């Protein structure tokens, strides 16, 4: 209490005139730029650069251990005449469309189910997530056993029930192999759809359902006129992701079939890997991978424009 602060800050003339550097230093955008730098560098280094390199490589005849020369669209011209490539495109589209549609149906059904009040709700919700948590390769190995031509538990059960006389060759026949990998993909993908849609359902105010009930809506009408329209934004997002994940799927196929039998389950991703890494023709593999980009852009565009249509979400400027 007795000591009095006597030293006052000494004012210099340099401080009074604000230098352009200090003005720049306090500029919000300039500071923001610095804050964004780490994230930007990270994105460029690990996303943009590999993508660019991949696209570049698709225009070269690079092989493993040899950087290759620019050959223009030659890789693509080769692919254009390659029946196996077109088969892989067909497989990928089939795989994506069928698996995504079924994942959506089952996921929505599960979400509606889990949104109800029931005993052990939290426990059941966490069980649903298990397929999503298990590492893909691990679940693929499990499916591999389930689909084994000799030891398949499905074949065994059906035989015991007397429904079939000999084992089903799940992964040996082209069509049943396609169906089998699609089922495995659905099993893995449903939890993501279900949990995300459940989160969306929980944002719908219960009083809307009560109001609709009093307005005379049946449970189907409540779904049709309340739940579904209010859920569409979430559906658009979740299905975009689901389609992207499914379209680019690699692990499951590689662990289960490696693209066989006779390329019947080769997806673009697995074919790209096989041509690029296994066979060492990096340029061709890169071209296959690059060919996926237009499909993915279309998928994103569809959901983007789907979301933009909803005027009611955008709020008013006269609030």
């Amino acid at each position, binding site marked *: 209490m007795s000591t009095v602060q006597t030293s006052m800050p000494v004012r210099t003339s340099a401080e009074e005139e604000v230098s352009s550097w200090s003005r720049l230093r306090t500029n919000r955008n300039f500071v923001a730029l610095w804050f964004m730098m780490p994230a930007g560098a990270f994105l460029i280094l690990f996303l943009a650069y590999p993508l660019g390199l991949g696209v570049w490589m698709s225009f070269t005849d690079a092989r493993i251990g040899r950087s290759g020369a620019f050959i223009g669209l030659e890789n693509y011209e080769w692919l254009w005449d390659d029946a196996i490539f077109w088969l892989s495109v067909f497989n990928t589209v089939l795989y994506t469309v069928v698996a995504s549609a079924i994942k959506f149906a089952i996921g929505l059904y599960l979400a509606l189910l889990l949104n109800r009040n029931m005993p052990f709700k939290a426990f059941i919700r966490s069980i649903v997530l298990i397929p999503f948590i298990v590492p893909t390769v691990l679940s693929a190995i499990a499916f591999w056993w389930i689909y084994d031509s000799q030891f398949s538990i499905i074949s065994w059960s059906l035989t015991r029930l007397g429904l079939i006389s000999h084992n089903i060759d799940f992964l040996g026949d082209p069509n049943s192999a396609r169906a089998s990998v699609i089922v495995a993909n659905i099993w893995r993908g449903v939890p993501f759809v279900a949990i995300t849609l459940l989160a969306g359902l929980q944002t719908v105010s219960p009083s809307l359902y009560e*109001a*609709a009930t*009093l307005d005379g809506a049946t449970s189907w009408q409540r779904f049709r006129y309340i739940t579904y329209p209010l859920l569409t934004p979430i559906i658009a997002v979740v299905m975009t992701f689901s389609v992207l994940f499914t379209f680019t799927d690699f692990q499951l196929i590689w662990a289960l079939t490696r693209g066989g039998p006779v390329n019947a389950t080769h997806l673009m991703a697995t074919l790209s890997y096989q041509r690029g890494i296994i066979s060492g023709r990096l340029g061709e593999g890169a071209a296959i991978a690059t060919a996926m980009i237009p499909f993915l852009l279309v998928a994103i565009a569809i959901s983007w424009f789907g979301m933009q249509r909803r005027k*009611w979400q*955008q*709020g008013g400027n006269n*609030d």
Partner: protein
Amino acid sequence: MSSVHIRDVRKSFGNFEVLHGVTVPIEDGEFVVLVGPSGCGKSTLLRMLAGLENITSGTISIGDRVVNNVQPKERDIAMVFQNYALYPHMTVADNMGFSLKLRGADTDEINKRVKRASEILALTPLLDRFPRQLSGGQRQRVAMGRAIVRDPQVFLFDEPLSNLDAKLRVAMRAEIKELHQRLKTTTVYVTHDQIEAMTMADKIVVMHDGIVEQMGSPLDLYDKPDNQFVAGFIGSPAMNFLDGTLKANGQPYVELDNGARLPLTTAPTASDGRPVVYGVRPEHLEFASDGIEAEIIVVEPTGSETQIVARLGKQDIIAVFRDRHDVNPGDKVHLRPRAVSTHLFDKDNGRRL
């Protein structure tokens, strides 16, 4: 339009009973307000009337029909929710016409009725907007419009004004009352705000802890509260309660602990020496030289009236004056209750004596 009869209705959630036998008769065309503090069961009762909650025991009838097991949509009621519950993805017109659409009414009929309701509520210019583009008061009106188009037997309101600001609340209060006078539809209105109850109701039902404390016209409740709870709940600022002893020999009065005497006109017979609670409303206190001495703590002028908080012994009492007095905190004043407007309650059970 229809009468509604709630007879000995009970509601339990598991083993926990929240309504302990509530009986409320509601006349055809009456505006009944259920009022009480949070958790008194008023909203639960309304939701049971709407069919959103099961009735544990007792009966609710609308008109001549017992509706205990009737689906909500068959009850011919419309409800306005606290958060309005407007469908965010539908325009105002679609929101209002939704129930008609579900009933399968044809488009012309829907348009006609939506148009009529929107004219009543001045919503016509807003019919193409989405709920997000509306202000709070407009949303409130749309919620009411949604109820009106159905032309139901009974309107139910669940704290419809609590999300509005104070000024709008007063305006909407008058609007709802006017609407009722125009449509004359039986209305059950739930609120925790006693001013809303007093201003709007034909009949107020005061609820507390799952029972009906008292029902009657607003002024009945104000003038003759059945018990200390109703006396304290109705009226703002709330009634002052002073603990004392009844002296009934000769001219009756109530004696406080500090010896001060509070006037009474009459006293219940054979009650001398009984411990009582003396109730007097702030507006029934006046300055008088023969009043009881109190020290002014706070003076709150509101313009139209002045509220004074004064300390009387260990207790604070509130007095409201319409005329202006030059008093300041710290002043000693003498306050006298108007004997004709005082209330006396049993100290043990709070009943009116």
